[in-house]
């Protein structure tokens, strides 16, 4: 049986070059489907990768209960001190808790295309850098605490105007110079950073937005969480930083995923009809050959398998071209959504997804024609011209 499948399929594949245009319909169709699907998913995949990098596993972020983002979380100064006294927080060399009360504010900026947008200005307190070992200055210098100076992430300039060392950023109390640029390898690379207290004074904020802490280990989180959530005076919730980013990004991811899959499915249905068309034509073109094989004793099943195999090979070839194009065009390209700056990613996982789609479309598109091929009466097919 296996031998028969192998032989029939080999004969079939060798005959492919006699019908190159029909085969190309499947290849091009699938290349279009996968090219579009992967290009769109490179956005969510890239965002997810950026979110995933953000957040040491033992770092936790404390926000006010029910906050949908750091922007609408508010933590009063006295509460921030209480939070820093909670159990499970690692200690700095001087014995103080490894925790930093932070703030965020939107800063009006212009995109490179001239449109208005907001970038995120984040405040670092005394422990801001110590909490983030991934943070390092790339050019210029660190801001001096207490002065009206900012530093900018290395990726901000790929999306926004005026985001290089020497540029000035307009805050409510005037222009603040950018004195250095930094890199963290995560979403912070698209943002601006300044001294928490000084920026708060400038934007007239009295409460912090969040408190970032480093726990002694990820295992210390449940106790830390219990201590905070059972304290009625606090009304705050802690999240492991990674979980937090997933939570606030969830709606956006779902939206883009539904969009990408919806469009991908519509295109795939179109490609499926094309595949059916091609495979029916292929079966008709091979009628003589198939009938001959059947007449000399080959079974119906190997014939059917050879048809499906042809569909799978063409479809996967198309998907490979589509995925390759998406990768060449978009993998690693600079992108932004809202104030998040990140790189698009056509990851190995997406290539796997492309393979699954290609095989599924080929199986659906090859099944009916393969049944027709296997069922056709031998005598009739031999007589056909």
């Amino acid at each position, binding site marked *: 049986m296996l031998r028969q499948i192998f032989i029939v399929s080999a004969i079939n594949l060798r005959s492919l070059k006699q019908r190159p*245009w*029909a085969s*190309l*319909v499947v290849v*091009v*169709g699938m290349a*279009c*489907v996968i*090219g*579009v699907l992967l*290009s*769109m998913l490179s*956005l969510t995949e890239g965002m997810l990768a950026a979110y995933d990098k953000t957040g040491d596993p033992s770092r936790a972020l404390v926000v006010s209960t*029910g*906050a*949908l983002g750091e*922007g*609408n979380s508010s933590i009063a100064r006295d509460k921030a001190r209480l939070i820093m006294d909670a159990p499970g927080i690692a200690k700095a060399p001087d014995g103080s808790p490894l925790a930093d009360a932070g703030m965020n*504010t*939107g*800063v*009006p900026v212009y*995109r490179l*295309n001239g*449109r*208005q*947008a907001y970038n995120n200005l984040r405040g670092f307190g005394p422990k801001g850098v110590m909490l983030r070992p991934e943070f390092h200055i790339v050019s210029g210098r660190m801001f001096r605490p207490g002065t009206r100076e900012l530093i900018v992430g290395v990726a901000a300039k790929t*999306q926004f105007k005026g985001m290089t060392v020497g540029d000035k950023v307009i*805050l*409510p109390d005037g222009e603040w110079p950018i004195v250095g640029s930094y890199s963290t390898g995560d979403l912070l690379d698209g943002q601006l950073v300044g001294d928490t207290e000084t920026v708060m004074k400038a*934007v*007239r*904020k009295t409460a912090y937005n969040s408190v970032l802490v480093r726990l002694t280990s990820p295992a210390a989180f449940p106790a830390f969480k219990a201590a905070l959530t059972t304290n009625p005076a606090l009304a705050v919730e802690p999240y492991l930083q990674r979980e937090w980013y997933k939570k606030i990004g969830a*709606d*956006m991811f*779902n*939206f883009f995923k*539904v*969009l990408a899959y*919806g*469009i991908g499915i*519509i*295109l795939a*249905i*179109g*490609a499926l*009809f*094309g595949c*059916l*068309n*091609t495979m*029916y*034509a292929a079966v008709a073109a091979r009628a003589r050959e198939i009938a001959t094989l059947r007449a000399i004793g080959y079974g119906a099943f190997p014939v059917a398998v050879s048809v499906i195999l042809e569909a799978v090979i063409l479809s996967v070839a198309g998907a490979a071209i589509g995925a390759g194009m998406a990768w060449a065009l978009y993998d690693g390209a600079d*992108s*932004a*959504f*809202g104030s998040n700056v990140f790189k698009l990613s056509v990851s190995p996982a997406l290539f796997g997804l492309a393979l699954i789609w290609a095989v599924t479309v080929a199986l659906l598109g090859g099944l009916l024609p393969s049944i027709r091929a296997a069922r056709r009466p031998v005598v009739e097919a031999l007589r056909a011209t």
Partner: protein
Amino acid sequence: MRYLPLVWAAILRKPTRAVLTLLSVMVAFTLFGLTIGLNATFDLMAEKARADRIYTWPRFGGSGVPVAVARQIEAIPGVKAVTAIGFIPGYVQDPKNQAFLIMVDQNAAKVFGDWNISPQMWNAVWKDRTGIVMTRAQAERWHKKVGDTFTMISKAVKRADGRTDWTFKVLAIAEDVPQNSNGFVFGNYDYIDKARPTADQGKVSEVDLLATDPSASADVAQRIDHKFANSATPMQTITEKLARSGNDFGGLDIKAITHGIALAGMFMVLFLTANGIAQSVRERFTEFATLKTLGFSDRAVTAMVVLESALPCILGAALGVGVAAVLARQIPKLMPPNFGIPLPTISPMVILWAAVSAFLVALLSAALPILRLRQMDIATALSGRA
């Protein structure tokens, strides 16, 4: 047209192929309708945007600016009407169901005069302080009809007693406007202002206004920015025309994306129909030779091939754009809501582009087979050796 029966017979010779080709073309044009329809919506928004309307809000967010800012803006030369606005951002039942209320003062009737809210509806809101007017899109989203109550939770805008729930009465349902296809809800600013803690009273989230001279609105916007630049409340001002120009969604270039998707679909069906028509002509090569022998001109044969190629394309395009029009109305039910992306509009422009694309695909598909037929040696073809 007199070749139609011949062409029809040719198409029906392979019914499976005809149906599959039609379906494939239809699907590609469904996508075409949705994507190019989305562009059409953005274009419509830009077109409907009023040159004289201006939005201004606190440059650095925060809890709002004193209502006095609105009065100061009124005094700026070139300003016709100003409405002070308080937003209530929040949710209904679950934080996932985000809601957004626009609480306005009585000048809103002037500033938003083109937003399909009748003087009667406005009057109802001014009389009943807890009343709101929502558009049809919002009414469908929250399953509300006139007379229902609408309750939302807002952590950002609290009541004087600390409660976060706000209940309103739906007084009227207005038609949506194209530039705001996800709908909007208007309420009475005076109501939330009086219900808030004293410290928050008299604060507004945004100030919207009309310029006397639409052509000077950019200057007015600049004057507002300038006036408040060094005050305690720096403002960020933009004209509606500018805000709605281009089609930018959070920094993504919608036009580039939709064009790419539509083009991929067209490319896919181009190969499919080209292959189909080439196959059909190849199968009937001898028949075409016979037709030519009988005196059919090259032009007649060309017309027949083009017609055979165009029929599924045009029919498929018509069906596909029709499906897109139906699907576009279902999108709010299928998509996570409130992401600010508008719904596709199947405008006459979209239909025109679909027709042009369908013709192009048909012509390109027919080109090679026609060339073969024109160059055919009738004798060889008739003998079946071609």
